[in-house]
């Protein structure tokens, strides 16, 4: 409940979110670097950077390139591995009053399952988000992320190992997002989140080389918002599980656009880099919108444009 008596809380797979705004994985660390700037207690949830069983060193640099109204990244899911993560990041996060969603990555089915098992009964974790869609990982990831059969299979396996609700995070680099959403649902996913980044490329014509050492990278930011809204709309109409929408959100109007398209919650990604306090502004802006429009409960706007 926000002060004005307006309900901004949403429920996703049995987990209560005080408001529908969280960060997108990989754009806020585990909150440590931002916590003096941004009151983590205000967030609907904190979503961690992807974590694997062992440390990953990621891709060579350059990993970042600016593009019109967006950016490319090819981090390659660098992460310190689940041991450090559990001790350091979860230790840190447990002190805050917000949901903790751990983003999980792996090179293989088995690696995903290892992380899921380690976190399955950890009280500090509220949900797991399975990143089957990272375009920068050569092995594993991309196949799960673009083939409905593989996606259903990995979803089933993850669900078998997990006591936590599972969010499957979908790749937009597919012909039919509706088919992918259905596959995740069929596999038992409790929710889906989308979109991950669109695969892109930039060339430095003066140096005659790729702007990213990895050649391709993931496009994010306002540039991709129309694609993201369309996919959230299509996915939320294809399934009955809740959808977490993201891709280019910069302000409360963008967030509300995703919710009207069918998202039950939203995540802010690259815009955190542009404006570290963006999420707080968005949370406040949503409440203002609801109150100005006489909407008592945020659930009234979810999927209202149809």
């Amino acid at each position, binding site marked *: 409940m926000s002060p004005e008596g307006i309900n901004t809380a949403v429920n996703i797979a049995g987990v209560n979110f005080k408001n529908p705004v969280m960060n997108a994985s*990989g*754009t*806020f*660390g585990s909150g*440590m*670097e*931002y*916590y*003096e*700037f941004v009151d983590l207690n205000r967030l609907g949830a904190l979503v961690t*950077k992807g974590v694997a069983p062992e*440390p*990953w*060193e*990621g891709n060579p*640099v*350059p*990993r*970042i*390139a*600016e593009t*019109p*109204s*967006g*950016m490319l*990244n090819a*981090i390659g899911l*660098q992460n*310190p*591995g689940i041991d*450090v993560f559990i001790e*350091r990041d979860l*230790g*840190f996060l447990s*002190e*805050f009053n917000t949901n903790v969603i751990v983003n999980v990555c792996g090179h293989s089915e088995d690696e995903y399952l290892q992380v899921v098992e380690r976190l399955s009964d950890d009280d500090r974790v509220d949900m797991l988000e399975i990143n089957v869609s990272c375009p920068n990982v050569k092995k594993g990831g991309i196949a799960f992320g673009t083939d409905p059969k593989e996606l259903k299979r990995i979803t089933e396996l993850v669900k078998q190992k997990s006591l936590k609700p599972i969010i499957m995070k979908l790749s937009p680099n597919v012909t039919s997002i509706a088919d992918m959403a259905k596959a995740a649902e069929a596999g038992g996913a409790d929710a889906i989140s989308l979109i991950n980044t669109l695969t892109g490329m930039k060339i430095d014509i003066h140096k005659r080389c790729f702007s990213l050492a990895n050649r391709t990278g993931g496009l994010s*930011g*306002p540039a991709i918002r129309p694609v993201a809204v369309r996919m959230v709309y299509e996915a939320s109409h294809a399934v009955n599980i809740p959808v977490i929408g993201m891709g280019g959100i910069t302000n409360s109007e963008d967030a509300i656009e995703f919710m009207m398209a069918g998202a039950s919650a939203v995540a802010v990604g*690259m*815009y*955190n*880099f*542009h404006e*570290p*306090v963006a999420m707080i502004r968005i949370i406040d802006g949503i409440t203002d919108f609801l109150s100005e429009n006489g909407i008592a409960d945020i659930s009234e706007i979810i999927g209202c444009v149809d």
Partner: protein
Amino acid sequence: MADSFSFCYSRDMINEKARIIKSERLADQVFSTVFESRVAETAYPGQFVMVGTKSDSRLLRRPISICEADREKGTIRLVYRAVGYGTKELSQAENGDSFDILGPLGNGFPLDEAQDKKQIILTGGGIGAPPLLQLARALRRTGIGKESVTAILGYRSMKSGLFLNEEFAAEVNVILATDDGSIGTRGTVMDAIKERDLKPDIIYACGPLPMLKAVRDFAADSFIPAFISLEEKMACGMGVCLGCMVKTSKKDSHSRVNNARICTEGPVFNAEEVVL
């Protein structure tokens, strides 16, 4: 609360709209901009700020080293080469214009390493010179005599113009080098060191990668410490995007994979600890 976690990042970071109070062209394509900014309160030599653009399609902030921070006046000065959209826009801005500034960021040059050193050398290649100016002043302020500190500044040529050299000269000894030999040593800052057969006890360096590699090699051969300031493309500047990595010789505490974040563990590193 989170204070109990020693690995949390406790920073005096400021995110503000800062107003320009002075703009100057120093040399061909090189500009100086002074902002009124609270960043001045805590800025340490070698730290940097992330400066926003006014373009709403260019959403990444630009990292620029702090060249001077005046705590009393509450101003910071950036000196930069206008190479692309952001730096050109900044160079054309007028007094009173405001830019989004996030900082101070990163870890600067370790001053304590210079204590008791006889021959302290600062090598600034081209647009690498600016952060060394604040360092020069800070070193002097710790009580180190002018005779102990030498700045070796490398430029393209007299024609494209020198910059900051006089301000360095007010604090420390200055040796010049130019690519075309139009003033000082013909060649790089390393050529200037070799030409004069200097035997530094410690080197602080900022500049292009080949220069930094040469400094590292020279320092290793001379068994002296060298602290170098690195650059990489950055998205967040705050340590979360993991965009700005440099390979490290040892596993660092954050990544556990021989990767350090230039924006957070750097931009200044002990030359021994990074793999260039």
